[in-house]
């Protein structure tokens, strides 16, 4: 499912948060493909992964979220972001 049209704005990020939230709530494992995606802004990260961490916690993200078709720098950026906001999650 293509659930995100961009990786720049809060709205882009919130769309991703909504879709992953549904899957997390249902107990599903989410494989998030970053194929062809571009740099992620902090607004996008805040409204997607930041919201996920706040709503579900890091354990849920570790247990139910995988990245596929990713560049190492993208995975590193998201991981670092989650570490930085960790004490707020």
């Amino acid at each position: 499912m293509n659930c995100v049209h961009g990786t720049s704005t809060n709205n882009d990020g919130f769309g991703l948060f909504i879709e992953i939230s549904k899957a997390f709530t249902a107990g599903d494992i989410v494989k998030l493909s970053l194929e062809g995606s571009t740099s992620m802004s902090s607004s996008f990260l805040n409204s997607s992964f930041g919201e996920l961490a706040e709503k579900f916690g890091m354990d849920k993200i570790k247990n139910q979220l995988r990245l596929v078709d990713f560049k190492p720098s993208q995975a590193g950026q998201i991981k670092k972001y989650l570490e930085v906001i960790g004490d707020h999650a």
Partner: protein
Amino acid sequence: MVYRLLVGSISNYDSWANYLVNNRPPPNFRKGDSLLVDFSCTWFLEPFHLVSLACLIEEYYLQGARVSFESGGFALQKYLTNIEFYNYWEPGFDRHTFTHTMINTTLCLWKVSSGLIDSYANQAREYFERNFFFGKDLEALSITLKEVFNNIYDHSNSPVEGYVLTQYYPNKKEIVTSICDFGLGIPTKLNEMWVESKGVKLSDTQALRAAFMRKVSSKSTPRNRGMGLSYLLTNVRVLRGSLRVFSNNAFLLHDMSNELHIYKSNQCFPGTLININLKTENLPQMEEEIEDQEFYF
């Protein structure tokens, strides 16, 4: 009535802010008055001049001015034509799409629009990757653009939104991006939150310094976590570039020595002016996507 805006090449940021402040629409400006932007005394303008001048013209335009131009030297006239500077205030010009450039080292002047943040940032990256830096990764350019656009859109409360211009200087091996808005300014916006939550007001220099720290946020949007400006700085540092931010009475300079300097400026800038200089010789190689593995957090 005709208002004449005589443009000069002022290199000092304080003096340029003084020029902008002194030339904003006067209280007696009326809808239907004319603005004549006069380039006859100038030969060279940098991106930071042009984006802030565009904001100034936009202020007149929003108050109903008819905008016209008096040309400067041939080279400047050609440059301004090629980046479509003259077109922005013409009736019927579409200001809300990505405009293709007629000069290969410069992207057109662009008015920041929330719906086009993604496409502008990505097209800017693709343009330079395709035309100048094949095999190199310009994510640093697109992410800096995204951060500053979001900063304008989420926080500035700028009636004229903002303007951006990106110029490549092959001889200097630099990509320079200038972005300007005539909004509240970063220190003023941050102080709104600071006063409310901590009961004290920071000086403009203290506020600008704080805005570049991680997790310091004006809370303009509910999910804001105070990461944007620190991300911007990180990307500039990765390419060993430089960053200048002039907002209200504070001026921030991050230079190639990797140090952050913040000064009190003599002139209050009416919004925020950002100048980002990325060194192209430090661009990394483009990465391949990993298709046969999963990444676990």
